[in-house]
């Protein structure tokens, strides 16, 4: 994939989101920082319950009740010179922004598509809402064009969701998401519910579309192996916090957080020497009773005393760039605070020519 050369499109700083209020509140996202560059694919990886979906929906304020945003800021910069504060935007502004600038693809197309409406109706309703200048025929033509873009014939415009196969439905969702040519597409595990073959097809189409239309993608998944292929940069979440952030290649080559290391060791590589597959011992914490200090420490094989009491911030790591726009690396681990060299599996990779670490 090409290295994106764009400007920062979406900036999330210190975002905090809770479910519920008061002492029983579940802190689903704590202090998340993200930057999405235009045209880039940013992968958001983590286990179920890590808060990745919450983060994504909180960005556009689509969090379901009783979700609330309790801190931070979200800035959207569609063009140099304009900035929109998504958290304080009014309903009208959000309504205009939504879908025309930022759209969403959900995991299950069967649930995300309205079962009683035809495909054509669901493709054209955004056109009607956002582009009132288009005539009915023009809308229909555009809808047909969208379907063609994802490889579905136009006669399906009058079909209903239950008449399509799973892969087709997902394609329809993607076409729907691109109807207004947004700058950002948030994809919440779009291929998790599909079989592997369809998964690959859809991902390929997705990447082709991205090449053509140039939108940025926030790709949420629990499958880190997927992100190898498609992501430019990756952010790893655990228990509501971002624990590592790096360019994709660099992350895979040299993870700097024990959790990332554990994730990478959890799936086998097709090539290379045979490795002993390790998982990550233990299970994700109850978000209402988080461990003190570093939230990962109960499951960490490198735990130190300090980890039990102090929670590390996302510490910037030396970004060994090669002249291209370097994605700053960061990891929330005391091993990386520079006071002592980290263990070799968590150390910076030796600087190979033309690669980052």
């Amino acid at each position: 994939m090409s290295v994106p050369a764009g400007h920062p499109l979406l900036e999330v700083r210190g975002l905090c989101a809770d479910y519920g209020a008061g002492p029983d509140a579940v802190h689903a996202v704590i202090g998340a920082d993200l930057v999405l560059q235009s045209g880039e694919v940013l992968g958001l990886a983590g286990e179920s319950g890590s808060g990745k979906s919450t983060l994504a929906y909180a960005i556009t304020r689509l969090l379901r009740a009783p979700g609330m945003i309790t801190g931070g800021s979200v800035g959207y910069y569609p063009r140099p010179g304009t900035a929109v504060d998504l958290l304080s935007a009014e309903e009208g502004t959000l309504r205009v922004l939504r879908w025309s600038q930022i759209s969403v693809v959900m995991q299950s197309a069967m649930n995300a598509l309205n079962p009683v409406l035809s495909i054509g109706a669901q493709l054209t309703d955004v056109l009607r809402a956002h582009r009132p200048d288009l005539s009915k025929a023009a809308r229909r033509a555009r809808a047909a064009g969208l379907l063609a873009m994802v490889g579905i014939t136009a006669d399906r415009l009058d079909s209903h969701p239950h008449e399509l196969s799973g892969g087709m439905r997902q394609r329809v969702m993607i076409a729907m998401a691109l109807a207004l040519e947004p700058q950002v597409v948030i994809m919440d595990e779009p291929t998790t519910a599909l079989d592997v073959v369809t998964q690959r097809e859809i991902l390929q189409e997705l990447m082709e579309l991205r090449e053509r239309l140039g939108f940025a993608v926030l790709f949420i998944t629990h499958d880190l192996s997927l992100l190898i292929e498609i992501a430019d940069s990756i952010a790893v979440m655990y228990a509501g916090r971002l624990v590592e952030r790096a360019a994709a290649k660099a992350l895979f080559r040299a993870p700097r957080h024990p959790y990332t290391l554990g994730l990478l060791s959890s799936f086998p590589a097709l090539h290379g020497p045979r490795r002993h597959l390790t998982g990550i011992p233990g299970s994700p914490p109850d978000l209402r009773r988080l461990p003190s200090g570093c939230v990962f420490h109960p499951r960490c094989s490198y735990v130190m005393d300090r980890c039990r009491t102090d929670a590390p911030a996302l510490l910037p790591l030396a970004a060994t760039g090669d002249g291209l726009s370097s994605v700053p690396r960061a990891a929330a681990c005391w091993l990386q605070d520079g006071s002592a060299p980290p263990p070799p599996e968590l150390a910076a990779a030796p600087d190979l020519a033309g690669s980052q670490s």
Partner: protein
Amino acid sequence: MYVISRRIGFYILTAIAAVTVDFFIPRVMPGNPVNAVLAKMQNTNVTKATLRALEVEFGSGTREGIWGQYVRYWNNILHGNLGISTSNGMVPVTTVIRGALPWTLGLVGTATVLSFILGTLLGVLVAWRRGSWLDTLLPATTFFQAAPYFFLAFLAIDLFAIKLGWFPAGSARSTLDFPALSWTYISDVLDHAILPALTIVVASAAGWIVGMRNVMITTMDEDYVLIAQAKGLPKRRVIWYAARNAILPSISGFSLAIGFVVSGALLTEIVFSYPGLGFILLSAVQEADYALLQGIFLVITMAVLIANLAADFVYVFLDPRTRQEA
């Protein structure tokens, strides 16, 4: 259309069963219905022909077997012969029913439809504005749901007709003029119809409101509603998308509830002395006019079946998933 034809088949079966039940009830009840009828008819002169007719009607005193009687019963029904009404001067049952049916259809029909529409709309509103003061209305609706229709009718009469004098207290029209398409006649009819209609609407709307609210709340949690919001569609459209799905179980519920609503409406008619089916049903019971009783039961059942069929049609129209031609 496979679905619809299956439903029609079911309704036909049900109709047959209803007729059969109607046939058997007087025959399986303890006691001799003929004697009971005669006991009630002490003052009128009972001719031999009447006696004969009654015996044939109820199957006593004939040498025909049950099956023969059953066949004859069917024969009569299919020829539109529902028997003789003993309490209305020996006129055919069909005549009596034909006089009362339009009143019932008019009142109950419109009131039910109105109530459904109103209840559904309110239900959508309460669900959308969830957490607002509207939620406090819900327990009040349970009161209206639980109160018997005729009690509400009593209250309505007492309050609006007697104490406030806004509306007439009973019957369908003030004068016994022949029906004419004059404004005075029509307005008179409407005037008399408002209170009973209001009673029916208030009593039954509560059920629709709560039902629709519950379904809407579940529907609003669906992904496609969230996507509709994510699309930046105007609020009205989002509500429409949700309601369009939520109405389907409501329509199923309509078919279930229509039996209840009809029953309640009949009772309301009685309290208001409205000359519909309910009213003549009551007099049939009191006068032991069994033929009329059976006839009314059949007519009501048929009407409910037809209403069910209509609701089925609407459901299939609204839900494309049922139209799957396997």
